[in-house]
């Protein structure tokens, strides 16, 4: 029972990160029906920029409180990721608007490789130790534990998702984004510059990805130039699980996927007589993806497939 609760707690933490990344996939898909495979790389760049900034601030011996240093790391990562996302939309995807869907999809894979290699050139091919500077107090819940880092991740994730939801439903840009995703041509007739709305979508997704990158770095204490690809793929699974194009779906899908993965990792040994260990953790996301695609291709909350007029 303690393992169960512990794995739920760990899963929700991981799930919060997946959810943040899945939102980026789902928003872009919702608006231009593109699966932006380079999105995971944006997470990596976010983690790496934060790593560099935090390292530099620590090197300065500035005496700033650790939480502020991490915050400054995130504050630097966010604009960099936004700029990267804007650049990839402008340079790689916009010229392909109206092209068959396979073209931008393959381009996205290309962009992903380019960003990954750039990451390697800038930050080396070695795993980097993400400075563990936040005081990590552990709270006991029965036999399970929750750390302050986990609580911080939840708090940030919940507030970011809340802010995004408000933005989408209450602001002019948010409503324009929804209008564009339903019918770009009519959106243009309203005076909406569809290209700007698409760029904004990429940029907002990138901000969430940057924050997710800082979260993963802080949580695992490690950053590597390939960290974005698997994380990105899993977040993509989460987006499909929730119903691609559906924002609450991405949030729900992320959380569920995190929990499934953590429970899977926690129990796989018991159920297979230790044939498989928790190093098979990564398998679960893809099992979930296959099950969803077979039994409910539209995802948990995705209701509309083909009702685009």
């Amino acid at each position: 029972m303690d393992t169960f609760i512990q794995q739920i707690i760990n899963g929700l933490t991981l799930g919060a990160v997946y959810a943040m990344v899945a939102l980026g996939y789902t928003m872009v898909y919702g608006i231009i029906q593109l699966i932006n495979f380079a999105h995971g790389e944006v997470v990596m760049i976010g983690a790496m920029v934060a790593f560099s900034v935090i390292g530099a601030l620590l090197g300065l011996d500035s005496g700033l409180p650790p939480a502020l240093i991490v915050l400054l790391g995130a504050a630097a990562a966010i604009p960099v990721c936004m700029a990267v996302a804007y650049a990839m939309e402008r340079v790689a995807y916009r010229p392909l608007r109206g092209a068959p869907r396979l073209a931008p999809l393959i381009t996205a894979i290309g962009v992903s490789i380019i960003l990954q290699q750039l990451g390697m050139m800038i930050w080396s091919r070695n795993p980097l130790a993400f400075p563990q500077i936040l005081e990590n107090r552990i709270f006991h819940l029965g036999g399970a534990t929750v750390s302050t880092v986990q609580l911080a991740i939840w708090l940030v994730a919940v507030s970011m998702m809340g802010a995004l939801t408000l933005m989408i439903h209450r602001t002019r840009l948010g409503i324009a984004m929804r209008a564009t995703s339903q019918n770009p041509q009519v959106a243009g007739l309203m005076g909406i510059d569809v290209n700007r709305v698409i760029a904004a979508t990429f940029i907002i997704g990138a901000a969430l990805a940057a924050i997710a990158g800082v979260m993963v770095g802080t949580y695992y204490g490690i950053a590597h130039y390939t960290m974005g690809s698997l994380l990105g793929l899993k977040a993509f699974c989460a987006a499909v699980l929730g119903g691609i194009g559906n924002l609450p779906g991405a949030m729900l899908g992320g959380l569920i996927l995190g929990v499934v993965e953590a429970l899977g990792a926690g129990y796989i040994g018991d159920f297979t007589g230790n044939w498989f260990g928790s190093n098979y953790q990564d398998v679960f996301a893809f099992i979930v993806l296959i099950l969803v695609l077979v039994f409910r291709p539209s995802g948990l909350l995705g209701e509309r497939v083909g009702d685009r007029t």
Partner: protein
Amino acid sequence: MNARAPLLQVTGLAVSYGGIKAVKGIDLEVASGEMVCLIGANGAGKTSTLKAIAGLLPVARDSIRFESEPIGGRPAFELVRRGLALVPEGRGVFSQLTVDENLAMGAYIRRDHAEIRRDLDNIFDLFPRLKERRQQTAGTLSGGEQQMLAIGRALMSRPRLLLLDEPSMGLAPLVVARIFEIITEVARQGVTVLVVEQNARLALQRCDRGYVMESGVVTLHDTASALLDNDQVRKAYLGE
């Protein structure tokens, strides 16, 4: 700028899809304050003409002038700012957005919030049904209500020229009559109107002038009352 120039002037407009010419060099004019219709059979090029004017199709720059400025091929989102609004064929409401949100998108280009609120009240006076359904998503409205929403939404941008594509399509006769009453009312309030319509009789009864299109060319244009009396029109479009 020439004060005498028509609000909208189309000269030698040609539209083609791939190798197929849908509109083959037509001329058309709408003066400020007029209500003009474009009638003709299916596939005559009416919708293409309207789409080209609204900036949805690539056409030669000089073939369309709005307030004497060449606007051919300019993107739709820019033309809205100049005072052009199109109510597209099939209404094109954002079905997952609420009525309020749809209308807010109509006013997307505007920042004068007090005036927007006043215009919203006017729209609700014009279409009381919409007021009752403000929080409903547009997809749950009936066809007639969606058409009203599409017209109201277009008016929210305060257009000088309102373009309507087949406003009667798929609606019951009573609803169609009501929609045309409203369009006439909008025109009376000073909005210039160009309407594409298959229901030729209704359109000609309401409009000042009419253009008849056939296979991509304008075959006739005259005052609406003259067209109603024209033998050719009566035979081909009024079923007499």
